[in-house]
Protein backbone atom coordinates (compact mmCIF):
# COMPACT_ATOMS: atom_id res chain seq x y z
CA UNK A 1 0.00 0.00 0.00
CA UNK A 2 2.80 2.37 0.94
CA UNK A 3 4.67 1.36 -2.16
CA UNK A 4 1.64 2.55 -4.13
CA UNK A 5 1.71 5.87 -2.28
CA UNK A 6 5.39 6.32 -3.09
CA UNK A 7 4.82 5.51 -6.75
CA UNK A 8 1.84 7.82 -6.90
CA UNK A 9 3.74 10.73 -5.39
CA UNK A 10 6.74 10.04 -7.61
CA UNK A 11 4.51 10.26 -10.69
CA UNK A 12 2.90 13.50 -9.48
CA UNK A 13 6.25 15.11 -8.67
CA UNK A 14 7.75 14.02 -12.00
CA UNK A 15 4.75 15.33 -13.93
CA UNK A 16 4.91 18.68 -12.15
CA UNK A 17 8.67 18.78 -12.78
CA UNK A 18 8.12 18.08 -16.48
CA UNK A 19 5.51 20.82 -16.63
CA UNK A 20 7.86 23.28 -14.92
CA UNK A 21 10.66 22.23 -17.23
CA UNK A 22 8.52 22.84 -20.29
CA UNK A 23 7.42 26.23 -18.95
CA UNK A 24 10.97 27.20 -18.07
CA UNK A 25 12.05 26.78 -21.67
CA UNK A 26 10.01 29.87 -22.44
CA UNK A 27 11.42 32.01 -19.64
CA UNK A 28 13.84 34.42 -21.23
CA UNK A 29 15.23 37.89 -20.75
CA UNK A 30 12.20 39.40 -22.48
CA UNK A 31 9.75 37.91 -20.02
CA UNK A 32 7.92 34.67 -20.49
CA UNK A 33 6.54 33.20 -23.71
CA UNK A 34 5.75 29.76 -25.02
CA UNK A 35 8.63 28.32 -26.99
CA UNK A 36 6.59 28.08 -30.19
CA UNK A 37 5.59 31.74 -29.97
CA UNK A 38 9.16 32.98 -30.14
CA UNK A 39 9.52 34.63 -33.52
CA UNK A 40 11.85 37.54 -33.07
CA UNK A 41 14.99 35.78 -34.15
CA UNK A 42 15.95 33.11 -36.58
CA UNK A 43 15.36 29.40 -36.06
CA UNK A 44 18.98 28.53 -35.49
CA UNK A 45 19.44 31.15 -32.80
CA UNK A 46 16.19 30.13 -31.15
CA UNK A 47 17.21 26.51 -31.17
CA UNK A 48 20.54 27.44 -29.66
CA UNK A 49 18.91 29.48 -26.90
CA UNK A 50 16.59 26.59 -26.11
CA UNK A 51 19.04 23.72 -26.28
CA UNK A 52 22.27 25.27 -25.12
CA UNK A 53 21.07 27.75 -22.54
CA UNK A 54 17.56 27.23 -21.22
CA UNK A 55 17.27 23.44 -21.24
CA UNK A 56 20.58 22.64 -19.48
CA UNK A 57 19.95 25.44 -17.04
CA UNK A 58 16.48 24.21 -16.09
CA UNK A 59 17.62 20.62 -16.01
CA UNK A 60 20.55 21.75 -13.88
CA UNK A 61 18.23 23.58 -11.48
CA UNK A 62 16.18 20.39 -11.09
CA UNK A 63 19.29 18.25 -10.59
CA UNK A 64 20.79 20.65 -8.03
CA UNK A 65 17.48 20.70 -6.15
CA UNK A 66 17.32 16.90 -6.25
CA UNK A 67 20.86 16.64 -4.88
CA UNK A 68 20.04 19.07 -2.06
CA UNK A 69 16.75 17.31 -1.28
CA UNK A 70 18.49 13.94 -1.15
CA UNK A 71 21.30 15.25 1.01
CA UNK A 72 18.79 16.88 3.37
CA UNK A 73 16.88 13.61 3.77
CA UNK A 74 20.13 11.72 4.41
CA UNK A 75 21.25 14.31 6.99
CA UNK A 76 17.92 14.24 8.83
CA UNK A 77 17.88 10.44 8.95
CA UNK A 78 21.53 9.99 9.83
CA UNK A 79 21.60 12.59 12.58
CA UNK A 80 18.05 11.74 13.68
CA UNK A 81 17.21 15.38 13.64
CA UNK A 82 14.50 17.03 11.57
CA UNK A 83 16.52 20.27 11.59
CA UNK A 84 19.66 18.77 10.08
CA UNK A 85 20.34 19.95 6.57
CA UNK A 86 23.43 20.36 4.40
CA UNK A 87 23.81 23.93 5.62
CA UNK A 88 23.40 23.43 9.33
CA UNK A 89 26.16 20.86 9.39
CA UNK A 90 28.57 23.18 7.63
CA UNK A 91 28.92 21.00 4.53
CA UNK A 92 27.69 23.70 2.15
CA UNK A 93 30.14 26.26 3.56
CA UNK A 94 32.89 23.67 3.27
CA UNK A 95 31.89 22.97 -0.32
CA UNK A 96 31.92 26.66 -1.23
CA UNK A 97 35.33 27.06 0.41
CA UNK A 98 36.52 24.09 -1.65
CA UNK A 99 35.24 25.72 -4.84
CA UNK A 100 36.80 29.10 -4.07
CA UNK A 101 40.10 27.39 -3.20
CA UNK A 102 39.93 25.60 -6.54
CA UNK A 103 39.18 28.86 -8.37
CA UNK A 104 42.07 30.55 -6.58
CA UNK A 105 44.50 27.75 -7.40
CA UNK A 106 43.45 26.70 -10.91
CA UNK A 107 41.42 29.67 -12.03
CA UNK A 108 38.17 27.91 -12.86
CA UNK A 109 34.95 29.89 -12.77
CA UNK A 110 31.26 29.28 -12.42
CA UNK A 111 30.86 29.83 -16.14
CA UNK A 112 33.45 27.21 -17.04
CA UNK A 113 32.05 24.69 -19.48
CA UNK A 114 34.82 22.12 -19.66
CA UNK A 115 33.83 18.81 -18.12
CA UNK A 116 37.28 18.49 -16.53
CA UNK A 117 36.92 21.86 -14.79
CA UNK A 118 33.42 20.89 -13.65
CA UNK A 119 34.69 17.61 -12.22
CA UNK A 120 37.60 19.45 -10.59
CA UNK A 121 35.31 22.01 -8.97
CA UNK A 122 32.92 19.25 -7.85
CA UNK A 123 35.81 17.28 -6.38
CA UNK A 124 37.04 20.36 -4.52
CA UNK A 125 33.52 21.02 -3.22
CA UNK A 126 33.21 17.37 -2.15
CA UNK A 127 36.53 17.51 -0.29
CA UNK A 128 35.54 20.79 1.36
CA UNK A 129 32.15 19.38 2.38
CA UNK A 130 33.68 16.18 3.84
CA UNK A 131 36.21 18.20 5.82
CA UNK A 132 33.53 20.55 7.12
CA UNK A 133 31.24 17.70 8.25
CA UNK A 134 34.15 15.91 9.91
CA UNK A 135 35.14 19.15 11.65
CA UNK A 136 31.55 19.58 12.85
CA UNK A 137 31.48 16.00 14.12
CA UNK A 138 34.80 16.41 15.92
CA UNK A 139 33.67 19.66 17.56
CA UNK A 140 30.35 18.09 18.55
CA UNK A 141 32.15 14.94 19.76
CA UNK A 142 29.91 12.69 17.73
CA UNK A 143 26.28 12.79 16.75
CA UNK A 144 24.73 11.97 20.10
CA UNK A 145 23.98 15.44 21.31
CA UNK A 146 21.74 17.25 18.91
CA UNK A 147 22.29 20.70 20.35
CA UNK A 148 26.08 20.33 20.28
CA UNK A 149 25.87 19.04 16.73
CA UNK A 150 23.80 21.95 15.45
CA UNK A 151 25.90 24.53 17.33
CA UNK A 152 29.12 23.02 16.01
CA UNK A 153 27.61 23.07 12.50
CA UNK A 154 26.76 26.75 12.83
CA UNK A 155 30.27 27.57 14.11
CA UNK A 156 31.95 25.62 11.29
CA UNK A 157 29.60 27.24 8.74
CA UNK A 158 30.34 30.77 9.95
CA UNK A 159 34.10 30.26 10.21
CA UNK A 160 34.41 28.59 6.81
CA UNK A 161 32.16 31.30 5.33
CA UNK A 162 34.54 33.93 6.74
CA UNK A 163 37.55 32.11 5.27
CA UNK A 164 35.79 32.00 1.89
CA UNK A 165 35.11 35.74 2.07
CA UNK A 166 38.74 36.37 2.95
CA UNK A 167 39.93 34.23 0.05
CA UNK A 168 37.63 36.18 -2.25
CA UNK A 169 39.02 39.48 -1.00
CA UNK A 170 42.58 38.29 -1.63
CA UNK A 171 41.65 37.43 -5.22
CA UNK A 172 39.62 40.44 -6.35
CA UNK A 173 39.47 39.12 -9.92
CA UNK A 174 37.27 36.29 -8.67
CA UNK A 175 35.02 38.63 -6.71
CA UNK A 176 32.27 38.86 -9.32
CA UNK A 177 32.13 35.14 -9.95
CA UNK A 178 32.10 34.43 -6.23
CA UNK A 179 29.35 36.99 -5.66
CA UNK A 180 27.00 35.15 -8.00
CA UNK A 181 28.14 31.95 -6.41
CA UNK A 182 27.42 33.02 -2.83
CA UNK A 183 23.95 34.26 -3.77
CA UNK A 184 23.18 31.00 -5.49
CA UNK A 185 22.33 31.03 -9.16
CA UNK A 186 21.51 28.58 -11.90
CA UNK A 187 22.39 31.10 -14.61
CA UNK A 188 25.77 29.52 -15.37
CA UNK A 189 24.67 25.90 -15.56
CA UNK A 190 25.46 24.36 -18.93
CA UNK A 191 25.42 20.82 -20.24
CA UNK A 192 28.71 19.86 -18.60
CA UNK A 193 27.49 21.05 -15.20
CA UNK A 194 24.19 19.20 -15.69
CA UNK A 195 25.99 16.03 -16.68
CA UNK A 196 28.24 16.27 -13.60
CA UNK A 197 25.22 16.67 -11.33
CA UNK A 198 23.32 13.84 -13.04
CA UNK A 199 26.25 11.52 -12.46
CA UNK A 200 26.57 12.59 -8.82
CA UNK A 201 22.82 12.20 -8.27
CA UNK A 202 22.82 8.69 -9.69
CA UNK A 203 25.77 7.63 -7.54
CA UNK A 204 24.44 9.27 -4.37
CA UNK A 205 20.93 7.86 -4.86
CA UNK A 206 22.17 4.29 -5.33
CA UNK A 207 24.43 4.49 -2.26
CA UNK A 208 21.74 6.15 -0.15
CA UNK A 209 19.12 3.55 -1.12
CA UNK A 210 21.51 0.73 -0.23
CA UNK A 211 21.82 2.28 3.24
CA UNK A 212 18.12 3.20 3.59
CA UNK A 213 17.44 0.37 6.04
CA UNK A 214 20.10 1.61 8.41
CA UNK A 215 18.36 4.99 8.46
CA UNK A 216 15.05 3.26 9.24
CA UNK A 217 16.64 1.34 12.11
CA UNK A 218 18.31 4.52 13.42
CA UNK A 219 14.85 6.06 13.73
CA UNK A 220 14.34 3.71 16.69
CA UNK A 221 17.56 4.84 18.34
CA UNK A 222 21.22 3.92 18.05
CA UNK A 223 21.19 0.99 20.50
CA UNK A 224 18.20 -0.56 18.76
CA UNK A 225 19.82 -0.11 15.35
CA UNK A 226 22.98 -1.77 16.63
CA UNK A 227 20.97 -4.59 18.21
CA UNK A 228 19.31 -5.19 14.84
CA UNK A 229 22.71 -5.98 13.37
CA UNK A 230 23.04 -2.80 11.32
CA UNK A 231 26.62 -1.96 10.22
CA UNK A 232 26.52 1.50 11.80
CA UNK A 233 30.19 2.36 11.26
CA UNK A 234 30.17 1.59 7.55
CA UNK A 235 26.79 3.23 7.11
CA UNK A 236 27.98 6.46 8.73
CA UNK A 237 31.01 6.69 6.46
CA UNK A 238 28.98 5.96 3.32
CA UNK A 239 26.14 8.32 4.25
CA UNK A 240 28.46 11.20 5.20
CA UNK A 241 30.17 10.68 1.83
CA UNK A 242 26.76 10.75 0.10
CA UNK A 243 25.76 13.87 2.02
CA UNK A 244 29.02 15.61 1.15
CA UNK A 245 29.08 14.56 -2.51
CA UNK A 246 25.45 15.55 -3.06
CA UNK A 247 25.93 18.93 -1.38
CA UNK A 248 29.31 19.46 -3.03
CA UNK A 249 28.04 18.60 -6.51
CA UNK A 250 25.11 21.01 -6.16
CA UNK A 251 27.15 23.82 -4.61
CA UNK A 252 29.95 23.54 -7.19
CA UNK A 253 27.49 24.19 -10.04
CA UNK A 254 24.92 26.53 -8.54
CA UNK A 255 26.47 28.10 -5.47
CA UNK A 256 24.78 28.38 -2.11
CA UNK A 257 21.08 27.71 -2.39
CA UNK A 258 19.42 27.61 1.00
CA UNK A 259 16.44 25.78 2.43
CA UNK A 260 15.81 23.28 -0.38
CA UNK A 261 17.68 20.59 1.55
CA UNK A 262 15.66 21.32 4.67
CA UNK A 263 12.24 21.92 3.11
CA UNK A 264 12.10 19.08 0.57
CA UNK A 265 12.17 16.18 3.08
CA UNK A 266 9.75 18.07 5.32
CA UNK A 267 7.35 18.59 2.44
CA UNK A 268 7.43 14.85 1.68
CA UNK A 269 7.05 13.86 5.34
CA UNK A 270 4.07 16.11 5.81
CA UNK A 271 2.25 14.22 3.01
CA UNK A 272 3.30 10.58 3.32
CA UNK A 273 4.65 8.40 6.10
CA UNK A 274 7.04 5.99 4.48
CA UNK A 275 10.33 4.29 5.20
CA UNK A 276 13.60 5.85 4.07
CA UNK A 277 13.83 4.09 0.72
CA UNK A 278 10.75 6.00 -0.43
CA UNK A 279 11.56 9.11 1.56
CA UNK A 280 15.04 9.52 0.04
CA UNK A 281 13.69 9.04 -3.47
CA UNK A 282 10.73 11.40 -3.05
CA UNK A 283 12.84 14.03 -1.25
CA UNK A 284 15.12 14.17 -4.29
CA UNK A 285 12.14 14.56 -6.64
CA UNK A 286 10.59 17.17 -4.34
CA UNK A 287 13.89 19.08 -4.09
CA UNK A 288 14.19 19.07 -7.87
CA UNK A 289 10.66 20.37 -8.31
CA UNK A 290 11.08 23.04 -5.62
CA UNK A 291 14.30 24.45 -7.05
CA UNK A 292 13.08 24.29 -10.64
CA UNK A 293 9.85 26.09 -9.69
CA UNK A 294 11.79 28.67 -7.65
CA UNK A 295 14.17 29.16 -10.59
CA UNK A 296 11.24 29.66 -12.93
CA UNK A 297 9.77 32.27 -10.60
CA UNK A 298 13.12 33.99 -10.15
CA UNK A 299 13.50 34.24 -13.92
CA UNK A 300 10.02 35.44 -14.72
CA UNK A 301 8.77 37.31 -11.64
CA UNK A 302 10.23 40.62 -12.76
CA UNK A 303 10.20 41.06 -16.59
CA UNK A 304 13.57 41.63 -18.24
CA UNK A 305 15.29 41.04 -14.94
CA UNK A 306 16.45 38.03 -13.06
CA UNK A 307 16.58 37.56 -9.32
CA UNK A 308 19.20 35.17 -7.92
CA UNK A 309 17.33 31.95 -7.18
CA UNK A 310 19.21 31.54 -3.88
CA UNK A 311 17.58 34.72 -2.57
CA UNK A 312 14.24 33.38 -3.73
CA UNK A 313 14.57 29.96 -2.07
CA UNK A 314 15.72 31.59 1.16
CA UNK A 315 12.59 33.71 1.35
CA UNK A 316 10.19 31.00 0.14
CA UNK A 317 11.81 28.30 2.27
CA UNK A 318 11.73 30.49 5.34
CA UNK A 319 8.05 31.29 4.89
CA UNK A 320 7.26 27.62 4.22
CA UNK A 321 9.03 26.42 7.38
CA UNK A 322 7.33 29.08 9.50
CA UNK A 323 4.01 27.89 8.11
CA UNK A 324 4.87 24.24 8.83
CA UNK A 325 5.86 25.20 12.35
CA UNK A 326 2.48 26.86 12.84
CA UNK A 327 0.57 23.91 11.39
CA UNK A 328 2.53 21.40 13.47
CA UNK A 329 2.08 23.48 16.59
CA UNK A 330 -1.67 23.81 16.13
CA UNK A 331 -2.11 20.26 14.90
CA UNK A 332 -0.35 18.69 17.89
CA UNK A 333 -2.72 16.88 20.18
CA UNK A 334 -1.84 16.77 23.83
Amino acid at each position, binding site marked *: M*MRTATTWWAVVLLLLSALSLASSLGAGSQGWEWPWQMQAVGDAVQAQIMWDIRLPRSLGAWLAGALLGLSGAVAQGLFRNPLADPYLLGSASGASLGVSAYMGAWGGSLTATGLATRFGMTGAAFAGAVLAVLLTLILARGVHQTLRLLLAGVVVGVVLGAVTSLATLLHPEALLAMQGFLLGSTAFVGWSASATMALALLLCMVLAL*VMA*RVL*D*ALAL*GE*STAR*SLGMPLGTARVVLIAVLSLATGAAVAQTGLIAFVGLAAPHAVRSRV*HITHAGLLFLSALMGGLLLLAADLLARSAVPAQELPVGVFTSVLGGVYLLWRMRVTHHGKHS
Partner: protein
Amino acid sequence: MSSSQLLAIQAKDLCVSLGGREVLHRMNLEVSAGQWTCVVGPNGAGKSTLLKALAGLISAQGQVHWLGVDVRQIERRERARQLSWLGQGEVAMLDLRVCDAVMLGRLPHQDWLAAPRAHDHAMVQAALEATQAWAWRDRTLGELSGGERQRVLLARAMAGNAALMLMDEPLANLDPPHQVDWLEQVHCLRAQGTTVVSVLHEIGMALHADRIVVMQSGRVVHAGAASDAQTHHAIELVFNERVRIVPLQGQWVVLPNMQGNRA
Protein backbone atom coordinates in the same frame (compact mmCIF):
# COMPACT_ATOMS: atom_id res chain seq x y z
CA MET B 1 21.78 -22.84 40.33
CA SER B 2 22.55 -26.39 39.27
CA SER B 3 25.60 -26.65 37.04
CA SER B 4 23.72 -28.84 34.56
CA GLN B 5 21.24 -26.05 33.81
CA LEU B 6 22.01 -24.35 30.49
CA LEU B 7 23.30 -20.80 30.84
CA ALA B 8 21.76 -18.36 28.39
CA ILE B 9 23.99 -15.45 29.37
CA GLN B 10 27.15 -15.47 31.41
CA ALA B 11 29.25 -12.45 32.34
CA LYS B 12 32.74 -12.82 33.78
CA ASP B 13 34.74 -10.00 35.34
CA LEU B 14 32.65 -7.45 33.50
CA CYS B 15 33.91 -3.86 33.80
CA VAL B 16 32.35 -0.90 32.02
CA SER B 17 33.53 2.70 32.10
CA LEU B 18 31.40 5.58 30.88
CA GLY B 19 32.99 9.00 30.41
CA GLY B 20 36.13 7.93 32.26
CA ARG B 21 34.19 6.66 35.31
CA GLU B 22 33.91 2.97 36.06
CA VAL B 23 30.21 2.15 36.25
CA LEU B 24 30.37 -1.65 36.57
CA HIS B 25 33.08 -3.19 38.73
CA ARG B 26 34.23 -6.71 37.84
CA MET B 27 30.78 -8.19 37.75
CA ASN B 28 29.93 -11.84 37.46
CA LEU B 29 26.46 -12.94 36.48
CA GLU B 30 24.72 -16.05 35.22
CA VAL B 31 21.32 -16.12 33.57
CA SER B 32 19.65 -19.51 33.09
CA ALA B 33 18.05 -20.34 29.75
CA GLY B 34 14.28 -20.16 29.51
CA GLN B 35 13.93 -18.11 32.66
CA TRP B 36 12.83 -14.59 33.38
CA THR B 37 15.48 -12.66 35.30
CA CYS B 38 14.83 -9.20 36.68
CA VAL B 39 17.51 -6.65 37.53
CA VAL B 40 16.50 -4.23 40.29
CA GLY B 41 18.30 -1.57 42.28
CA PRO B 42 18.28 2.14 43.08
CA ASN B 43 18.90 4.86 40.49
CA GLY B 44 22.49 4.93 39.29
CA ALA B 45 23.18 1.33 40.29
CA GLY B 46 24.30 0.51 36.74
CA LYS B 47 21.29 -1.62 35.73
CA SER B 48 20.87 -0.22 32.23
CA THR B 49 24.63 -0.28 31.64
CA LEU B 50 24.72 -3.94 32.69
CA LEU B 51 21.89 -4.76 30.31
CA LYS B 52 23.62 -2.98 27.41
CA ALA B 53 26.88 -4.75 28.18
CA LEU B 54 25.12 -8.13 28.28
CA ALA B 55 23.50 -7.28 24.93
CA GLY B 56 26.92 -6.46 23.48
CA LEU B 57 25.80 -2.91 22.68
CA ILE B 58 28.60 -1.11 24.54
CA SER B 59 32.25 -1.93 24.83
CA ALA B 60 33.15 -3.66 28.06
CA GLN B 61 36.15 -5.38 29.60
CA GLY B 62 35.78 -8.96 30.66
CA GLN B 63 33.71 -11.59 28.93
CA VAL B 64 30.10 -12.05 27.93
CA HIS B 65 28.94 -15.43 26.67
CA TRP B 66 25.62 -16.21 25.03
CA LEU B 67 24.71 -19.90 25.21
CA GLY B 68 28.36 -20.64 25.92
CA VAL B 69 29.83 -18.65 23.02
CA ASP B 70 31.87 -15.48 23.48
CA VAL B 71 29.78 -12.61 22.07
CA ARG B 72 32.79 -11.17 20.26
CA GLN B 73 32.98 -14.34 18.18
CA ILE B 74 29.37 -14.17 17.02
CA GLU B 75 28.84 -12.46 13.68
CA ARG B 76 26.87 -9.16 13.80
CA ARG B 77 23.70 -10.37 12.08
CA GLU B 78 23.73 -13.70 13.90
CA ARG B 79 23.85 -11.76 17.16
CA ALA B 80 20.80 -9.80 16.06
CA ARG B 81 18.95 -13.04 15.35
CA GLN B 82 19.85 -14.44 18.78
CA LEU B 83 19.13 -11.42 20.94
CA SER B 84 16.36 -8.88 20.83
CA TRP B 85 16.75 -5.52 22.57
CA LEU B 86 14.09 -3.15 23.90
CA GLY B 87 15.66 0.09 25.11
CA GLN B 88 14.08 3.02 26.86
CA GLY B 89 13.31 6.43 25.35
CA GLU B 90 15.35 5.90 22.21
CA VAL B 91 12.90 6.62 19.42
CA ALA B 92 14.07 9.63 17.47
CA MET B 93 11.84 9.83 14.40
CA LEU B 94 8.17 9.75 15.23
CA ASP B 95 6.80 9.78 11.70
CA LEU B 96 7.55 6.10 11.24
CA ARG B 97 4.37 4.05 10.83
CA VAL B 98 3.62 1.36 13.41
CA CYS B 99 3.77 -1.53 10.93
CA ASP B 100 7.05 -0.24 9.46
CA ALA B 101 8.53 0.15 12.95
CA VAL B 102 7.61 -3.41 13.92
CA MET B 103 8.89 -4.75 10.57
CA LEU B 104 12.31 -3.41 11.58
CA GLY B 105 12.35 -6.24 14.12
CA ARG B 106 12.51 -8.62 11.15
CA LEU B 107 15.64 -6.96 9.68
CA PRO B 108 18.05 -9.61 11.03
CA HIS B 109 16.06 -12.26 9.16
CA GLN B 110 15.91 -10.46 5.82
CA ASP B 111 18.44 -10.23 3.03
CA TRP B 112 19.95 -6.76 2.77
CA LEU B 113 17.88 -5.34 -0.09
CA ALA B 114 15.08 -7.92 -0.19
CA ALA B 115 11.47 -6.95 0.45
CA PRO B 116 9.75 -8.51 3.49
CA ARG B 117 8.26 -11.95 2.78
CA ALA B 118 4.85 -13.28 3.77
CA HIS B 119 6.39 -14.90 6.84
CA ASP B 120 7.78 -11.53 7.98
CA HIS B 121 4.35 -9.92 7.59
CA ALA B 122 2.78 -12.78 9.56
CA MET B 123 5.29 -12.35 12.40
CA VAL B 124 4.66 -8.60 12.50
CA GLN B 125 0.91 -9.15 12.67
CA ALA B 126 1.26 -11.78 15.40
CA ALA B 127 3.47 -9.49 17.49
CA LEU B 128 1.13 -6.52 17.09
CA GLU B 129 -1.86 -8.68 17.98
CA ALA B 130 -0.07 -10.02 21.05
CA THR B 131 0.46 -6.49 22.36
CA GLN B 132 -3.04 -5.43 21.23
CA ALA B 133 -1.58 -2.84 18.88
CA TRP B 134 -2.71 -4.26 15.52
CA ALA B 135 -5.47 -1.65 15.21
CA TRP B 136 -2.86 1.15 15.07
CA ARG B 137 -0.75 -0.43 12.35
CA ASP B 138 -1.25 2.45 9.91
CA ARG B 139 -0.73 5.23 12.45
CA THR B 140 2.63 6.88 13.05
CA LEU B 141 4.53 6.53 16.33
CA GLY B 142 3.98 10.25 16.91
CA GLU B 143 0.21 9.75 16.89
CA LEU B 144 0.34 7.32 19.82
CA SER B 145 0.51 8.01 23.55
CA GLY B 146 3.62 7.01 25.49
CA GLY B 147 2.07 3.76 26.70
CA GLU B 148 0.69 2.85 23.28
CA ARG B 149 4.09 3.48 21.73
CA GLN B 150 5.71 1.27 24.35
CA ARG B 151 3.41 -1.60 23.35
CA VAL B 152 4.36 -1.11 19.70
CA LEU B 153 8.05 -1.15 20.60
CA LEU B 154 7.51 -4.35 22.58
CA ALA B 155 5.88 -5.84 19.50
CA ARG B 156 8.94 -4.72 17.50
CA ALA B 157 11.22 -6.56 19.93
CA MET B 158 9.00 -9.67 19.85
CA ALA B 159 8.79 -9.75 16.05
CA GLY B 160 12.44 -10.80 15.87
CA ASN B 161 11.57 -14.08 17.60
CA ALA B 162 14.97 -14.19 19.30
CA ALA B 163 15.93 -16.74 21.97
CA LEU B 164 17.22 -13.98 24.26
CA MET B 165 15.23 -10.86 25.00
CA LEU B 166 16.62 -7.94 26.99
CA MET B 167 14.30 -5.13 28.05
CA ASP B 168 15.26 -1.90 29.78
CA GLU B 169 12.33 -0.57 31.81
CA PRO B 170 9.65 -1.97 29.51
CA LEU B 171 6.84 -0.85 31.85
CA ALA B 172 7.64 2.86 31.48
CA ASN B 173 4.43 4.73 30.58
CA LEU B 174 2.24 1.63 30.83
CA ASP B 175 -0.94 1.87 32.88
CA PRO B 176 -1.68 -0.94 35.41
CA PRO B 177 -3.85 -3.10 33.11
CA HIS B 178 -1.20 -3.00 30.41
CA GLN B 179 1.51 -3.75 32.95
CA VAL B 180 -0.43 -6.93 33.72
CA ASP B 181 -0.70 -7.60 29.97
CA TRP B 182 3.08 -7.24 29.75
CA LEU B 183 3.46 -9.72 32.59
CA GLU B 184 1.33 -12.22 30.70
CA GLN B 185 3.37 -11.68 27.56
CA VAL B 186 6.60 -12.35 29.43
CA HIS B 187 5.14 -15.56 30.87
CA CYS B 188 4.07 -16.49 27.37
CA LEU B 189 7.57 -15.79 25.98
CA ARG B 190 9.09 -17.87 28.76
CA ALA B 191 6.70 -20.71 28.03
CA GLN B 192 8.02 -20.65 24.45
CA GLY B 193 11.55 -21.05 25.81
CA THR B 194 12.65 -17.43 25.45
CA THR B 195 15.13 -16.17 28.05
CA VAL B 196 14.01 -12.76 29.29
CA VAL B 197 16.16 -10.29 31.21
CA SER B 198 14.52 -7.04 32.23
CA VAL B 199 15.45 -3.99 34.26
CA LEU B 200 12.43 -2.96 36.30
CA HIS B 201 11.70 -0.19 38.75
CA GLU B 202 8.35 -1.77 39.61
CA ILE B 203 9.52 -4.15 42.37
CA GLY B 204 6.03 -5.61 42.68
CA MET B 205 6.20 -6.77 39.06
CA ALA B 206 9.81 -7.92 39.42
CA LEU B 207 8.73 -10.27 42.21
CA HIS B 208 6.85 -12.29 39.55
CA ALA B 209 10.13 -13.16 37.83
CA ASP B 210 11.99 -16.44 38.31
CA ARG B 211 15.15 -14.80 39.56
CA ILE B 212 16.09 -11.35 40.77
CA VAL B 213 19.49 -9.71 40.50
CA VAL B 214 19.86 -6.93 43.07
CA MET B 215 22.38 -4.22 42.17
CA GLN B 216 23.93 -1.32 44.00
CA SER B 217 26.78 1.01 43.00
CA GLY B 218 27.84 -1.02 39.98
CA ARG B 219 27.93 -4.36 41.79
CA VAL B 220 25.62 -7.34 42.17
CA VAL B 221 24.83 -7.53 45.87
CA HIS B 222 22.51 -10.52 45.59
CA ALA B 223 21.11 -12.89 43.00
CA GLY B 224 18.45 -15.41 43.90
CA ALA B 225 14.96 -16.74 43.42
CA ALA B 226 12.26 -14.08 43.41
CA SER B 227 10.34 -15.90 46.11
CA ASP B 228 13.35 -16.26 48.39
CA ALA B 229 13.31 -14.36 51.71
CA GLN B 230 17.01 -13.49 51.32
CA THR B 231 16.29 -11.85 47.98
CA HIS B 232 13.51 -9.81 49.55
CA HIS B 233 15.84 -8.76 52.34
CA ALA B 234 18.53 -7.71 49.84
CA ILE B 235 15.98 -5.58 47.95
CA GLU B 236 14.79 -3.93 51.15
CA LEU B 237 18.41 -3.15 52.08
CA VAL B 238 19.44 -1.53 48.79
CA PHE B 239 16.36 0.69 49.01
CA ASN B 240 17.35 1.74 52.57
CA GLU B 241 14.45 -0.25 54.00
CA ARG B 242 12.09 2.33 52.52
CA VAL B 243 10.10 -0.56 51.06
CA ARG B 244 8.84 -3.79 52.62
CA ILE B 245 7.99 -6.97 50.81
CA VAL B 246 5.05 -8.82 52.32
CA PRO B 247 2.92 -11.80 51.29
CA LEU B 248 -0.67 -11.17 50.22
CA GLN B 249 -3.04 -13.83 48.90
CA GLY B 250 -0.28 -16.05 47.59
CA GLN B 251 1.68 -13.18 45.95
CA TRP B 252 4.45 -10.92 47.14
CA VAL B 253 3.66 -7.21 47.25
CA VAL B 254 5.74 -4.14 47.96
CA LEU B 255 4.64 -1.60 50.51
CA PRO B 256 6.19 1.77 51.35
CA ASN B 257 7.88 1.80 54.72
CA MET B 258 7.65 5.24 56.36
CA GLN B 259 9.99 4.19 59.14
CA GLY B 260 12.89 3.33 56.81
CA ASN B 261 16.19 5.23 56.67
CA ARG B 262 16.37 8.17 54.33
CA ALA B 263 19.25 7.89 51.91
